[in-house]
């Protein structure tokens, strides 16, 4: 009998990461898609870093940062009695960093592809920046938003290296499905590994299938 906890945990982690990143990424992408400046290029570079960095680099720095032996970890523990390493919150922070480009990039390119006249028209009709963003721009880039959400979700489900380094494989807290698979293979439980792996395989296929069919539909209806 396999434990379902790793699957629930993965789902919880992926959903929370997606929600947090959506809230962060919309304003960030909106800002990044605007006029260019040197500072923006630096921010863009930082946002894209998790794409090229091995997860172990992020895991290593987070492990150092979270450690109570170092400044940040010590400060958190002294002031808030929080220890992030080996905890769900720690994984959540790691996932948010690790999946950041997967949410920001689609939204940013969606916003950049919109004609500037859309924004100008909204401004001249008296909409505020916020209203323009939420009522005019975002509804026009639904496929990009969906792509960002789905990719972030799927990427978080697939996260492994970072979790291995800072998770500590704690059942119910940090043992996600990808770690559980690794664990079961190492322990010679091929059957259990197969079940987890199979579920993830079907899940990823379904998610991407839904995304692509939805985006296709959107593109067909876009100009009506």
């Amino acid at each position, binding site marked *: 009998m396999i434990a379902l906890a790793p699957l629930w945990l993965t789902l919880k982690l992926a959903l929370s990461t997606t929600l947090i990143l959506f809230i962060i990424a919309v304003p960030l992408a909106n800002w990044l898609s605007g006029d260019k400046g040197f500072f923006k290029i630096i921010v863009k570079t930082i946002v894209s870093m998790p794409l090229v960095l091995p997860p172990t680099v992020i895991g290593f720095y987070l492990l150092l940062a979270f*450690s109570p032996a170092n400044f940040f970890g010590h400060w958190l523990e002294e002031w808030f009695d929080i220890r992030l390493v080996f905890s769900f919150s720690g994984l959540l922070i790691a996932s948010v960093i690790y999946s950041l480009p997967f949410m920001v990039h689609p939204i940013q390119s969606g916003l950049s592809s919109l004609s500037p006249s859309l924004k100008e028209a909204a401004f001249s009709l008296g909409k505020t920046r916020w209203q323009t963003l939420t009522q005019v721009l975002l509804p026009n880039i639904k496929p990009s938003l969906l792509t960002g959400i789905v990719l972030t979700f799927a990427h978080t489900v697939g996260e492994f290296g970072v979790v291995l380094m800072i998770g*500590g494989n704690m059942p119910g807290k940090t043992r996600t499905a990808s770690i559980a698979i690794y664990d079961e293979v190492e322990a010679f439980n091929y059957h259990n590994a197969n079940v987890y792996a199979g579920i993830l395989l079907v899940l990823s296929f379904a998610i991407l299938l839904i995304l692509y069919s939805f985006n296709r539909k959107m593109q067909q209806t876009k100009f009506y």
Partner: protein
Amino acid sequence: MRKKMLFFFISMSCSLQLLAQSKLTIAVAANMQYTIQELITEFNKANKTKIDVVLGASGKLTQQVLNGAPFDIFISADKEFPQKLADNHFTLEPPKVYAQGLLVLWSVKPNIQPAKDLKLLVSPAIKSIAIANPKTAPYGSAAEAILKKYNLYAIISSKLVTGESITQTSQFIATRNADIGFTAKAIVISGEMKGKGKWVELNSADYPPIEQAAALLKHAKEANEGAAKQFYNFLYSAKAKAIYNKFGYIVK
């Protein structure tokens, strides 16, 4: 110019081949990470064999061998995993025990004093206890056994943080990410970790003996059987025994 290049490549490939002839790849249980370096240095005083070491939890390495990893020798942290390889016909001869490992409780937090009775683990001041994965790391299963023997396992299981091998476990402790943890004596008394924090040797009668065995693997036949046999035999020599002793193992 061309001739020179050609000569260069030929001599390169020859020398590469020469290197390949005296090269071994061995799979080594993580608790031996410092010991193995000294063993290799000692061995190579009389030989010129390049030995690549792959470290990991014994269970994980066993898994890799079963799936065709090209290792010549497997140095495990227990008897069961090499036996499993022997049962599956991956070894050239039955595995033999080379040393017995000891379990220690270790902490580098200044205000924590590890004690043999393990009672301090219950204290709320200790939030996380590092242990190697009991399914794949023999030191992890030994730690689990002693916790169960002292009737502490159920009480503290929510504090347990699992390292995938004894090295990751030790790293959790050494970086203070875990308050305290179970590791191998060979790790805490090695050069790198010496003097870091405090450790106590646990009562060896309270956990099943960690008898560490090694096996000569079939892959050695395809590559470099002579050198593999030499190193394998060296693991049981008097010189090697002196090194095990130095790193805190019990040698019979």
